[in-house]
């Protein structure tokens, strides 16, 4: 094997400077660009959140006017979901899927290049709406009609265009992932032998292909309603605003699994490594994934319990939603069982993964509470909902992203990151994330509605705790940037090929840093399951 790689070392990127990045078709280059792009968006979206929390630090209007506040919450949500979480997982997929299945590159390298370069275009359009006359989109990230059609600001058309471009980008990325996984696996690797991260991405890619076109159709209907006199969502012309919600959530609910399934995959890679045991219940993990993906298509209306659904429909969506707790419970049980009696060490990826298992479970439980119609009637549109989805997205998806980056960074850069600083980053993040999002549940139960710039005096104490937590959490992410940059600059111990003592899988059979071209000869030693 080593002779094959010595040969590879001779080939670097064919172009240098900026053209290397614009014209690259290398999965590692494109993965890196995805990661950098998404973290730029993460800090933009995060800055908006900081302004939101500064405004909510005390009751009354302090920093931003109400219209701008609405725009901030909308753009924060949209940038974080479409600009950060989705691209960051595509970046990880680009880097790791070919390495994990023993492929020389992604199956469609030019498509890969294009799907990345569409993103900065969409990102710039999206962000530019904030500076347009009439203000940016201010109707919440769910952009319900008629708020976004009849009453939306002029910039909404640009917002729609940005969604179209991002949709095309993620659909092309998904097609690439599926073709890579089906056609480019090492000859001896059966589907069942694939690492769980690859499995999660296979299923995620199918979800994206199934629902992003529905979102594209929905925003196209919005566009024609706004500009060409159609009445898809306009009651006056015989349309129905509730139809918008059905279409949006038919996309929106699978979307929440699109942003969590790859996170499950990362956790399923990291925990076995640091528990030095095989993943418990590997096959059941894959079945659980597939069940979650299937169920995600038949639960969308649990976001719409307050729209006056018929009782039978409400009950169906309630029970179907609660059913998702079963495969999710299987996954959490399997992670805990993997840890059980393992020889654990607590490097930063493991710390983030353990925090993920605990905190994501809290988010899952509040999700169950929201699934229950009688309680949802009370929690609906309150800060409880905000607490719930931030628990599954921040200590859920985001912590898994951190776990994945710390886990694979030595493989990417060839150097170990600064473990002390990284642990510091973890502990500050883990404490402040709870400080930020846990009190939101109580605020919601006490009756504080979401998406408001001002609130009643009795909510002040908890809002101040939340704001302080948010500022600390935001600042802690600068430590992360520092750690990554230092590692990229080679300030650290040289990483070995295996990097971690308990690591398994093909990505650990290539040198660190992974050479520009890997697996030009397919690997022969495949772990069977």
């Amino acid at each position, binding site marked *: 094997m080593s002779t094959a790689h010595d040969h590879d070392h001779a080939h670097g990127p064919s172009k240098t400077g900026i053209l290397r990045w614009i014209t690259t078709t290398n999965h590692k280059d494109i993965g890196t660009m995805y990661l950098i792009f998404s973290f730029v968006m993460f800090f933009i979206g995060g800055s908006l959140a900081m302004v939101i929390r500064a405004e909510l630090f005390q009751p009354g209007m302090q920093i931003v006017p109400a219209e701008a506040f609405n725009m901030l919450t909308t753009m924060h949500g949209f940038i974080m979901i479409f600009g950060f979480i989705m691209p960051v997982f595509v970046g990880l997929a680009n880097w790791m899927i070919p390495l994990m299945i023993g492929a020389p590159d992604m199956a469609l390298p030019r498509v890969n290049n294009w799907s990345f370069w569409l993103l900065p275009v969409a990102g710039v359009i999206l962000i530019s709406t904030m500076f347009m006359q009439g203000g940016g989109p201010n109707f919440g990230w769910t952009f319900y009609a008629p708020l976004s059609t009849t009453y939306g600001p002029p910039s909404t058309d640009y917002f729609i265009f940005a969604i179209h471009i991002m949709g095309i980008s993620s659909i092309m990325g998904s097609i690439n992932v599926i073709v890579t996984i089906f056609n480019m696996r090492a000859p001896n690797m059966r589907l069942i032998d694939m690492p769980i991260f690859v499995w999660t991405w296979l299923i995620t890619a199918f979800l994206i*292909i199934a629902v992003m076109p529905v979102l594209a159709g929905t925003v196209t209907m919005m566009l024609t309603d706004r500009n060409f006199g159609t009445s898809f969502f306009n009651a*006056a012309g015989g349309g129905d605003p509730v*139809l918008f919600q059905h279409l949006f959530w038919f996309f929106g609910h699978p979307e929440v699994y699109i942003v969590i399934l790859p996170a499950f995959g990362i956790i399923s890679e990291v925990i076995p490594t640091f528990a030095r045991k095989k993943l418990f219940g590997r096959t059941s993990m894959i079945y659980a994934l597939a069940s979650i993906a299937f169920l995600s298509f038949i639960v969308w209306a649990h976001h719409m319990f307050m729209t006056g659904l018929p009782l039978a429909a409400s009950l169906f969506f309630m029970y179907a939603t609660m059913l998702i707790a079963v495969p999710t419970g299987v996954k959490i049980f399997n992670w805990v069982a993997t840890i059980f009696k393992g020889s654990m060490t607590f490097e930063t990826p493991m710390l983030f993964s353990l925090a993920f298992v605990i905190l994501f479970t809290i988010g899952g439980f509040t999700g169950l509470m929201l699934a229950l119609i009688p309680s949802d009637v009370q929690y609906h549109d309150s800060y409880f909902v905000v607490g719930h989805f931030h628990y599954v997205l921040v200590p859920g998806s985001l912590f898994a992203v951190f776990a994945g980056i710390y886990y694979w960074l030595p493989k990417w850069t060839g150097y170990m990151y600064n473990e002390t600083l990284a642990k510091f980053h973890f502990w500050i993040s883990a404490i402040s994330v709870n400080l930020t999002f846990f009190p939101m549940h109580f605020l919601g139960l006490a009756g504080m509605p979401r998406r408001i710039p001002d609130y009643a005096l009795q909510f002040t104490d908890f809002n101040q705790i939340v704001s302080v937590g948010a500022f600390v959490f935001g600042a802690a992410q600068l430590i992360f940037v520092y750690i990554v940059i230092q590692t990229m600059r080679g300030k650290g111990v040289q990483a070995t090929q295996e990097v971690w003592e308990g690591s398994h899988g093909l990505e650990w059979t290539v040198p660190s840093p992974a050479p520009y071209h890997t697996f030009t000869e397919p690997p022969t030693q495949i772990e069977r399951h």
Partner: protein
Amino acid sequence: MNATKRKSHTRLVAILLAATFGMLLFAFAMVPLYDAFCEMTGINNKGGRVRLEAPTEIDTSRVVKIKFITHVQGDTPWEFYTKENSIEVHPGEVNKVLFYTENHTDQDKVGQFVATISPGQSDRYVKKAECFSFNKQYVDAKQTKEMSVIFFIDKDIPKDTEELILFYTLFDQTGDAK
């Protein structure tokens, strides 16, 4: 080896692209499907799309109270009201209620009235023979228009339903397409 791989890429990509366009079509197919589903199950109907059979008998043993609520969407200077806030009817009995709309502007107006029946589960029992919400209404400048709804309550309406709300919203459609 290489050639066969390349071929299979094309095939798989074609299938996946077809699936993508299929889902795009599905999104647009949802529009008529949604209406068809609502009509089939009798939910979300505005009392306008049901097949009508003349009532055969009047159930004088029961009384259902029908309340009327009118609402003008937006800030158009129209008025829209009915002189009766509510009526009490027997199931099976045909009723006619008059509504009035006044156009206070100097401009001829076109309006569309949209009816909603509350509670939603009861709307399938409200049978309309004629309603001003079935068509667009043209109201000339400074004019008042009298409009009527003719309806009956199905005698199969559940015994525990004692009160219904018939809610009309007026949308100004002047200058809209068509």
